[in-house]
């Protein structure tokens, strides 16, 4: 059984159909890239999976357990983490605190543990470990708002990992990153796959998306127009047309 | 039916006051509490002119001019340096301006602590249709409001200025990037909205027959109810909400008496409406 299974999801905003019968399956230890032109519905699909947008039809399941209909906080606690298209750190919190915030998923909803101490030495160490792992240089005690854009993205990946997810959704993580940072990110994704995470990668940098993925899904106009291994997708005529903008002709 | 008439007259003053607030919110996203101070300043100027000339029309014009001047002064002196600050910053400053104006107005060298009578000679003849009477003053208030609203509509829909206001309200950065002089457009928006508040102050004073330093307190809160119900920044929603609220208040009180103080009624309506429609009756849907 797939770790994450999205079935026939349809989303409408007023009269606009943002997603129509979209299917997506990701296994543990698999990286799936989601590519497609702007407005194809990639971020909307992330919003559906994480409970920010309710589909009018279809289901989202994690290890067979239904996710859609649950709140986004609950979905996060069940093991789905994400980053945002525009990096959204907590700007006034320190870099370290940004990660520590994400370490409390078991304590937040608990009536007693919610009053427990958050910044223990062990958790600070874990936060530092995660930040090092994603390649964010020190110092970690300055406000996250002071970081350059590229570092904000790395911080967001570290923060998402701190929730100890089973599924990680990365929304254009390489945007704004410089070459060495992109390479670092690629290494991180490869490591996560080895560790058994299911990773979905939305990426405009198509070479990167194809390089990092086991499978690629191409979305256009809210529909899946192609699916396969990177090599299959690279050779697909419909995909080439969609990217050249002649698909509607 | 008689209640309907007084509801419409009262609604006219609500709308005139609230619409400027809504325009200003739409363009600057400021909770402009000091608008009520502008309203009192307008009423004061109108009162002075009425006392020396006896003309209500001149008084309304004076109120509008004084309102515009006061509003622009608040914009330039107070809000201008804090537009990029967190939202509570202009809010607190606005409250400061309002407290300051209300306190100064109560000084003997301005309006003083006691109400002044403003028994205007009705500028229009009274109307009588069946058993419904409309006083000349009420008629004047309604017609003035109607005239100003038509003018505003023309400005919004037919002039460059109105288009610029709409562009800025929709997206200030984009409007600025596409070559609109945002500062100037905000200035004219403020001047126009504040002029309406000044005129509203005179209209309300003439309608109720008195001018006093704290006359802005209740309208300031109520105008916000109207603006929020109208969908914060939605100018035409504000018109509907203003008349709707005035009619509802008047009719409820006429038929059921004072279940709660009249001013609490507005807030009950506000809370109930927000619980059903969290962005006001005519608010844009959440993106």
């Amino acid at each position, binding site marked *: 059984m797939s770790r994450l299974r999205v079935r026939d999801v349809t989303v409408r905003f007023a009269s606009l159909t943002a997603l129509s019968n979209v299917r997506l399956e990701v296994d543990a230890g698999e990286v799936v890239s989601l590519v497609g032109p702007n407005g194809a519905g990639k971020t909307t699909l992330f919003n559906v999976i994480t409970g920010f947008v309710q589909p009018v039809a279809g289901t989202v399941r994690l290890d067979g357990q239904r996710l859609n209909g649950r709140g986004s906080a609950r979905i*996060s606690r069940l093991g789905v983490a994400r980053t945002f298209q525009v990096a959204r750190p907590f700007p006034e919190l320190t870099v370290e605190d940004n990660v520590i915030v994400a370490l409390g998923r078991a304590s937040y909803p608990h009536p007693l543990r919610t009053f427990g101490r958050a910044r223990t030495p062990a958790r600070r160490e874990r936060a530092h470990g995660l930040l090092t792992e994603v390649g964010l240089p020190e110092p970690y005690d300055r406000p996250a708002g002071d970081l350059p854009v590229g570092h904000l993205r790395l911080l967001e990946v570290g923060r998402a990992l701190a929730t100890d997810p089973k599924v990680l959704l990365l929304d254009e993580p390489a945007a704004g990153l410089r070459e060495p940072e992109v390479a670092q990110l690629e290494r991180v994704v490869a490591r996560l796959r080895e560790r058994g995470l299911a990773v979905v990668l939305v990426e405009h940098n198509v070479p990167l998306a194809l390089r990092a993925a086991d499978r690629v899904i191409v979305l256009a106009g809210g529909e899946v127009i192609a699916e396969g291994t990177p090599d299959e997708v690279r050779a697909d005529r419909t995909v080439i047309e969609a990217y050249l903008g002649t698909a509607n002709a | 039916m008689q209640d309907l008439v007084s509801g419409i007259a009262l609604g006219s003053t609500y709308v005139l006051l609230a619409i400027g607030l809504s325009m200003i919110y739409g363009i600057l996203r400021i909770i402009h509490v000091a608008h009520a101070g502008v309203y009192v300043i307008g009423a004061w100027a109108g009162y002075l002119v009425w006392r020396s000339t006896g003309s209500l029309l001149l008084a309304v014009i004076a109120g509008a001019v004084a309102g515009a001047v006061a509003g622009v002064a608040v914009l330039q002196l107070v809000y201008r340096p804090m537009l990029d600050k967190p939202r509570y910053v202009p809010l607190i400053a606005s409250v*400061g301006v309002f407290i300051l104006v209300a306190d100064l107005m109560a000084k003997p060298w301005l309006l003083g602590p006691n109400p002044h009578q403003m028994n205007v000679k009705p500028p229009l003849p009274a109307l009588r249709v069946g058993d419904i009477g409309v006083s000349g003053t009420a008629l004047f208030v309604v017609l003035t409001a109607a005239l100003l609203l038509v003018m505003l509509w023309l400005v919004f829909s037919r002039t460059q200025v109105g288009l610029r206001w709409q562009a800025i309200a929709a997206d200030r950065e984009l409007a600025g990037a596409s070559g609109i002089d945002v500062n100037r457009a905000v200035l004219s928006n403020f001047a126009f909205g504040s002029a309406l508040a000044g005129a509203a102050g005179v209209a309300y004073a003439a309608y109720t027959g008195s001018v006093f330093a704290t006359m802005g307190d209740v309208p300031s809160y109520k105008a916000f109810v109207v603006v929020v119900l109208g969908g914060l920044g939605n100018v035409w929603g504000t018109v509907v909400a203003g008349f709707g609220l005035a009619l509802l208040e008047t009719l409820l009180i006429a038929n059921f008496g004072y279940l*709660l103080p009249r001013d609490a009624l507005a807030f009950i309506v506000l*809370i109930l409406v927000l619980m059903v429609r969290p962005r006001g009756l005519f608010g844009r849907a959440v993106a």
Partner: protein
Amino acid sequence: MSGYLISIIVFGGVWAILAVSLNLLTGEAGLVSLGQAAFFALGAYTSALLALRAELPFLACLAISALVGGVLTGALGLLALRVRDDFLVFTTIGVNFLVVAVFQYFEAFGGALGLVALPFAEVAGVRLTPQRYAWLVLAVLGLVVAASFALRRTWLGTGLAALREDEQAARALGIPTRAYKVVAFALAGVVAGLAGGLYAFYLGSVFPQNFGFLVSIQVMAMLVLGGLGTLAGAVIGAFLLTALPEVLRPLADYRYTILGLILILVVMVAPDGLVGVARRWLTSLRRRGGQAETTPPAGSEARP
């Protein structure tokens, strides 16, 4: 202590407790409330009613005020789940008017004439002198400040900070933001309830007009003057604005004009309040001192 000093301490202390309550909502959780006087009123009326109608002792009244304040304010916090940003501000203003109207309208709550002639505060049969009362108020203030500090170290406090910074991102990390909003209101209600109880017993009476919208504004002004988001700011701002009318006695006629001017100038010059000013001043002082003595190691820029 002179009677004058005592009254400054008691009122300053009560306002400071209320400012700490507002800071819990607005400073910690980012929920802007302009209806804090309503939550204050819930505590004051609970104490007054219990003391007059049920003849409960002072401390019991105070404890129940905190409890009732917490429960009712938490319930009102449910309203905050539907609205956000400016609409939340207006909802809290509406709640303020509504609560005052209810107290003013219903005879059971004393109506417009209020509730008067509360018994003197007694603890274990001993009547509290004004001086002792002042100490008690300071002790309660110390307690709520300490509790507020402690809160920041917990998951709850951390989660509220995340909620303040970015609600959606907070939810995406598993923070139950809806529940946390209600909890923030409830905690603020407990603290405001305490303030209300202390206020009612000191005055010996409560009137609806003591809890109007301008009181909410005043509390917000205290917090902003001191420094929103800081506990020191809440306390400093409250005591300063309480003492101000006395300091300005020669200008008593222009008290509100000056209050208005202060509000405008503070947010114009220092929107982070007096605490913010002090912090920046200390930082620059430390930098200058540090440069004079040693050159700081590369990459360790001073930032508090």
